[in-house]
């Protein structure tokens, strides 16, 4: 360790710590902190009572439940199925693998409105899938969940994939020769190594879903108290030129998202430590 550190100090082509940190702080301030602090400043124009009314009306509370609930659920589903997709893409050879691999990125590239309209069409009562389902998807909270699952998939697959690729087969073989069953090998050897990446993918998918507007708005039906997402209520406030009210809700979303992401990061750090550093 000590050896590599001195080596780095002497030969590094990257700028030194002071310069790099200064640049990092400046960059983060300009790109992230400044716009966000503008949101906070705007809410300071409100009285505490007005702020509380804006962020805690029954309609807004219902939208928090839907947004956080559907995002969490979507990210969980992606964590399970994204892992399977990544596994198949890394471990098996099959025709058109490259094409299918590229398909995973589509939710990234597709304009969200296009995704929303397409999903709504497929899952509506007269749609390709919707007409065979015994329950309604489009224009219900289930539709919100479907859209948020769609946009979150690439995050899990693309974070897990490189870790899986680096995972040497020898580990599994060693585990097998030591008498472990397949399930044991997965649970005690593979899964702990994948865990940090899986958590990162989950966190990214979750965070992306929280802020999603474009695709959800078409499929949700936007019924008050039932299928209104929080970003819609922010737009609604802006529509009334109520900038302070809009930013008040945004601030609540920001703080809640930040707290959740911080918690997930802590969990990830903990799982990495437990695994003995990687």
């Amino acid at each position, binding site marked *: 360790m000590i050896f590599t550190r001195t080596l780095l100090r002497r030969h590094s082509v990257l700028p030194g710590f002071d310069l790099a940190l200064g640049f990092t702080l400046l960059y983060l301030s300009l790109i992230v902190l400044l716009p966000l602090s503008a949101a906070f400043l705007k809410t300071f124009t409100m009285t505490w009572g007005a702020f509380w009314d*804006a962020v805690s*009306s*029954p*309609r807004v509370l219902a939208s928090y439940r839907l947004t956080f609930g559907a995002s969490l659920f979507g990210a969980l589903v992606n964590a399970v199925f994204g892992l399977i997709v990544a596994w198949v893409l890394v471990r098996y050879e099959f025709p058109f693998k490259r094409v299918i691999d590229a398909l995973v990125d589509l939710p990234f590239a597709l304009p969200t409105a296009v995704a929303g*309209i397409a999903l*709504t*069409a497929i899952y*509506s*009562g*007269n*749609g390709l899938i919707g007409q065979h389902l015994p329950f309604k998807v*489009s*224009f219900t909270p289930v539709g919100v969940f479907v859209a948020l699952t769609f946009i979150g998939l690439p995050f899990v697959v693309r974070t897990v994939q490189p870790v899986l690729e680096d995972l040497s087969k020898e580990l599994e073989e060693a585990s097998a020769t030591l008498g472990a069953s397949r399930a044991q090998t997965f649970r005690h050897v593979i899964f702990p190594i994948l865990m940090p990446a899986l958590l990162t993918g989950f966190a990214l998918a979750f965070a992306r879903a929280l802020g999603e507007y474009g695709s959800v*708005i*078409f499929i949700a*039906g*936007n*019924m*008050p*108290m*039932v299928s209104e997402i929080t970003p*819609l209520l922010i*737009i*609604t*406030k*802006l*529509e*009334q*030129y*109520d900038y302070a*009210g809009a930013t008040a809700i945004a601030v609540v979303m920001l703080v809640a998202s930040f707290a959740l992401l911080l918690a997930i990061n802590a969990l990830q750090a903990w799982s990495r430590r437990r695994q003995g550093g990687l």
Partner: protein
Amino acid sequence: MALALAGLAAPSFAAGPSLLNVSYDVSREFYKDYNAAFAAQWRKTTGETLTLNQSHGGSSKQARSVVDGLEADVITMNQANDIDLLAERGQLIPTDWAKRLPDNASPTTSVSVILVRKGNPKNIRDWTDLGRAGVSVIIPNPKTSGNGRYTYLAAWGAALKRGVNPQAAEALVARIFANVPVLDGGGRAATTTFAQRQLGDALVTFESEVPLIKREFGEDYEAVYPAWTVLAENPVSVVDKVVDRRGTRKPAEAYLKHLWSDEGQQIAAKHHLRPRSPKVLAAYAKDFPKVQTFTVDELFGGWKKAQADHFNDGATYDRIVAATKR
């Protein structure tokens, strides 16, 4: 995005001046034709080549962009309060902007009509029918859509015109909105829900949208004209602060004034916007059935008051929605 578009449009290589018209979403086709006509007219009278740029989007979003610095020479909207914003928030125009041009500064209008499925199976004739049990109607969200707000005011105002009291008018509007299965964000999204997803027995939209819907989705629809409906005025204004700084006041004012010319009115009529000129209206009479109308100013004390009384958080619309059992 509007800002980015304007940024791209700014370094124009044309010899003459340029104008940016910031407008609402569904006026795109009309202004495309009108711009070509006005540019030709301008070249004929001044010899200058005028570059006309357009920016379209949700109306209040567009108005916010102008307040936040989008360099619009003229603003053309479908609701007066979106232009009022420029006077109130940005001091970009005087508060009496609507008096600077004839007809409340609105060269064209449209009316809210009810679109039903072929043969009108639910026998929908007027706003009251939309509040009947068993009828399902698609209306865009009044919280996010001017089209939705006009629908709400149309039903309410028509009830007042029939002579019922405001409580009964509110009750009717509440029954209508209880029949709405999906609240889309804007007019075009609501059209898709009605025409493509086949949801709802009726769709409420502007008369100017009906030919477009028939062209896109076939002739399986009929427009129903209620006895009374709201007159949606499409106001326009020069953005004083911008034209004075850019030195474009002259072409900008001429651009708006030309909207009232025979040529401008005819182009509007071709795009199914009701012209103000009686002569042009008479020439296109078959496209614009006679209907009794009221304005938002007349029955609701102007857009500002209507917005505060009905659509702001905690106002009548929110109360209606909260009381609706689903």
